[in-house]
């Protein structure tokens, strides 16, 4: 996770037993994300809004998610979202400068959020391994 203090800490939710914050770890831009009701995260699908401006072309786009507990990465998940011959999403192939917006349902398939405080680091990068988006989430669950 980056140590940048350039971008503010954003509150995704702050409910009785669950708090989620995030901070952009992209040196050049903040990250915009909003969830419609935090408790819905445990539902099969919940609604989010997310937006970003591309700083690089995304002919290829990959996602890397890291679960970090006490500073140690304990789980890594990565996935290719776009390839020249596999444009899974309509935004695949978009170019530097384009605004990408998603508003709609997301399915995480999580049915329980483990107790404790931990960090989920999410990063999107392109074919040249340049950062497209980066956010570190802090999750506190009682």
């Amino acid at each position, binding site marked *: 996770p980056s140590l940048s203090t350039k971008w*503010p800490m*954003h*509150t*995704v939710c702050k409910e009785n037993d669950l708090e989620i914050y995030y901070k952009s770890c992209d040196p050049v831009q*903040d990250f*915009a994300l*909003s*969830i*419609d009701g935090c408790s819905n995260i445990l539902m099969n699908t919940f609604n989010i*809004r*997310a*937006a970003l*401006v591309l700083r690089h072309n995304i002919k290829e786009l990959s996602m890397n998610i890291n679960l970090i507990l006490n500073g140690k990465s304990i789980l890594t998940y990565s996935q290719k979202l776009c390839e020249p011959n596999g444009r899974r999403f309509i935004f695949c192939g978009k170019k530097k400068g384009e*605004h990408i*917006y998603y*508003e*709609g349902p997301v399915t995480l398939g999580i049915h329980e959020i483990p107790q404790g405080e931990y960090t989920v680091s999410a990063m999107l990068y392109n074919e040249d391994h340049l950062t497209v988006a980066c956010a570190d989430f802090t999750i506190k669950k009682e």
Partner: protein
Amino acid sequence: VSCEVSEPIDTMCTEIIANKSYSCEDLGLREIPERLPTTTEILDFSFNLLSSLHNSTFSKLKNLVYLDLTRCQINWVYEGAFQSNAHLNIIVLTGNLLMFLADTAFVGPQSLKHLVLTQTGLTNLAFIPMQNLDNLETFDLGSNHISSLQLPPSFPTRNLKYLDFQMNNIQRIAAKDIDILLQTKNLTLILKGNDIMHIEAGAFQYNLFYSLDFGGCIDISVVLAGMQDTRTHTLWLGTFEDADNGIPINPTMLLNLCNISVVDISLQKRHFLHLTAATFQCLNKLQRLDLTHTYISMLPPDISGMNMLEELILNRNAFKHICNISSTAFPSLTHLYIRENAENLDLGSGCLETLSKLQHLDLSHSYIENLDCCSNQLKGLSGLQHLNLSYNKQLQLQDLAFKEGANLELLDLAFTRLHINASQGPFRNLHLLHVLNLSYSYIDTNIQHLLQGLQNLFLLNLRGNKFQSGTIPNENLFHQLPSLEMLILSFCDLTAIQNQAFHTLKKLKHVDLSHNKLIAFSTDAFSNLKSIYLNFANNRIHIIPRDMLTNLSGQSIINLSYNPLECTCSNIGLITWYKQNMDKIEDPEGTVCCEPKALAGAKLSTVTLPCGINVAGIVCTV
């Protein structure tokens, strides 16, 4: 001597009302200035550079009621941007290309009433989080790219009175898209500038609107088909000079109006194919019909059943003769407008005779030329209150020119060349006339009986008329106006006013003598100097003796701007009085020194002259 003229160049916000209202418009600001007091209620922050709004952006301005963020390059509105602003009523976000609105973007205000999202690049209603919008009264979503009217279940309806979707991309409206609007009452819904191609039958059924605006739509039959069983006060179906002409209207297209409850329709700039009585058969219940610029030169004489019509607007058409409007078909008219007629409009004789209820008649800008005016032409219109004949070619006013005009309150003859052909006052029977506009009418101001009989005249506008030798003599045409309160004599080329000129006008309160060639400012000519307004701007006054000023009471206002005022000791009387009576001065910005050269352009209020105590002392002891 501090004679410096300093233009205050300043990037500070302007205080409109101390501690309450501030304008920071177009100052290149990148954040809310720290110096704004926390008591600020009204903030115009338009045309600055904010880029993103956070929960800290407005957190100090806890009393904000009105916030104008027009064109601040705001792209990102993060969570809780207004969470500290419980009293916020109005948020204006016009012209910001919004890229993200967090779900809680508008959470915070207890009663957000007006939200303006005009030209914010919206393509989809779902982009707008509906949290905490329940109290909205007006919701402006115009000039976006919204292509579907699908209103979500959370759409605010409780207090909604005004919903503006103008100039979006809405082509089809389905019943289920808008069924939530059934919960509103007396809503004004603006769909102007959308290219409506289909409305589901019954989509607006059982709705009760105040006004529905489909201006600029291509095919009004699509709209009317979709509006069956709808109730609305106003239905705007016209189009515009800069919009598509649309499909011409034939009589069958209007048949669907029979099943719509509406009292006011505009068909501005629509073309009619076969304009016959049949065209009007479903317009029976109308109280107001606007046919502005509909390319008509004749209304069918056999129209029937239009007994409820009170207001008929026929502006910008091409009638050759006023009889061609077939006035007998509209017996209940109280208001009739035939402005800006494209042809020389012949007023005929008695063509409007049957309109016994007519109160307002506007025939301005219609190339009217009449050598025998106007009793025959206006025969039967004994209830007429407002008559506008301004901006026509010329009229020859006969004796008792408005014979049946005993109820006239307003008569506008501005910019129409008048020839007075009456041995007695042409207006002398207009006992109730309140306002008479004769500006630029080229009247002969030597006719002493011209204004005879106007015993209730309140306002007389003579702007742009000339007086013999540029002088208003003591004996003049104003003597017969005991009720006159306002008199406009600007642009009259006046060089002098005699001492007793307005002495008989005991009620005179507002006199505009601006844009003349007067060299003296004098208050002598007015009989009553309690709370008078005197405009002497743009004249040729150099010096004003202090005793001309001292008898102006505390309520009076004078305007001396744009005169070649001298800032020398010969004018110390004016300058001293001026600085002590700034509350009586209109346009102090324009009230500047002309002489001496060193002080040219300096505001009078900033000038201090070294004329010695004795001069001031003498004045003070007067």
